[in-house]
């Protein structure tokens, strides 16, 4: 575990230190069109954003959005499975053109990479057994709460957990919810989209309260105003013609309002 922490630390360090490549004269927008392929980073282990369907093909909200973007650019999509910790280095090193990976917009991240307007607003919710009600964070004192390591849920709970509450970290969403089912933790904090699916599958579990809200955007390299503007135009058009709404109904169980900056 220590090695892993060290590695993650280096990942974060490198993300800030590595020189941002490809901030050359040509915009990524032109480069992508010329290449005929857009390299998109997605996470295939984060349903409902990114997952493998029953035929072992990539699917999900983020993946579908990536396909719409490629369609409107008139290029092929190259989906690259990445990890949460590698999202930023993959962009700064020029390996990927954009990252669509339930990517919460934060001011800190925006110092290193650029974010488009929001493509989804997810909430972080507390899920536990329906017969053990909890209504606020203070109710978690003396209890163990599971989160997925390095996810938005982990960041939120690390910051907000009251004194006396224990935060237990797991490697992926499946392990986190397994820990709840196995009784290793009293409750978990997870994304609202995922919590709805867990609720449907396990009637004994219930979403107790909302911990926080996280707007998510598409990540790209800084200093590429052309490409950023095209992506924002694209998001605006997909919203106006209802295609984003359709994806939200399909994957998230309902439409949410998308704030713009």
């Amino acid at each position, binding site marked *: 575990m220590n090695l892993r922490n060290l*590695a993650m630390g280096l990942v974060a360090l490198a993300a800030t230190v590595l020189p941002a490549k490809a901030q050359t004269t040509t915009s990524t927008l032109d480069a992508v069109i010329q290449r005929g392929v857009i390299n998109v980073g997605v996470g295939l*282990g984060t349903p409902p954003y990114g997952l493998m369907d*029953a035929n*072992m093909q990539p699917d999900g909200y983020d993946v579908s959005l990536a396909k719409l973007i490629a369609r409107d650019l008139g290029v092929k999509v190259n989906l690259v499975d990445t990890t949460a910790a590698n999202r930023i280095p993959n962009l700064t*090193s020029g390996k990927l053109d954009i990252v669509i990976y339930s990517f919460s917009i934060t001011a800190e991240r925006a110092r290193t990479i650029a974010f488009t307007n929001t493509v989804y607003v997810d909430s972080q919710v507390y899920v536990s057994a329906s017969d053990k009600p909890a209504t606020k964070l203070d109710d978690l004192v003396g209890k163990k709460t599971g989160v997925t390591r390095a996810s938005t849920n982990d960041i939120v709970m690390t910051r907000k957990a009251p004194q006396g509450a224990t935060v237990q970290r797991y490697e*992926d969403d*499946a*392990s986190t919810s397994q820990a709840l089912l196995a009784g290793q933790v009293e409750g978990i904090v997870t994304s609202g989209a995922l919590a709805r699916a867990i609720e449907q599958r396990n009637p004994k579990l219930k979403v107790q309260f909302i911990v926080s809200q996280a707007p998510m955007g598409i990540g790209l390299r800084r200093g590429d105003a052309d490409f950023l503007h095209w992506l924002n135009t694209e998001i605006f058009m997909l919203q106006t013609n209802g295609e984003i709404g359709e994806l939200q109904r399909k994957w998230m169980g309902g439409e949410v309002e998308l704030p713009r900056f």
Partner: protein
Amino acid sequence: MFQTFGLNHVGFLLQSTTWTLLLSAIALVGGAVGGALIALMRISGNRWVDGIARVYIYVLQGTPLLVTLFIVYFGIAGLGFDLPALAAAAIGFTLYSGAFLGEIWRGAVQSVGRGQWEGAFALGLGWWRTMQKIVVPQAVRVALPPTVGFCVQLVKNTALASIVGFIELTRAGQIVSSATFQPLQVYLCVAAIYFAICSTLAYASRRLEQRLATTPA
């Protein structure tokens, strides 16, 4: 939204096992070449050549493989070269296994008594002939168990290649586990596949050891 863990998922796991096997093979072949070179440098007797090999081993053994892979993949890209993921993984694993195999083999060669060298020289054999005909055949027997032990570790370490975007066995397990929410079943299946690979290696090594043991020295 969730799927039930089934044959399609097992197929996906097996398919991703080919990456695990390919990465292991690359690491072994690259590491064998690098390791032989490092071992030779270590026993060369030249202070500078030995020193370079020592520093190499010191740095690579003292760095987590995850970090080595990260530096090769993202670091070289930062310098302006676009290195494909497979090349980055090949370089990273070769650097890593070369350092470990080099030390294992150096130890094995040095475990062959000085008397063997002196006897061979007295018979008029040169350095290379002595190495080839006298020392290596004896060293192989010493080196075999730790070499196979390292190979088994290496097979499992290929899981780290997911950092450069490979969907190998462990990453495939995570993906299937997330899609099915049946982590226990999925990871048991993943463990069984790793076990099949590693126990095959161990079995082959035992057979080889037995064969070498019956050969008169």
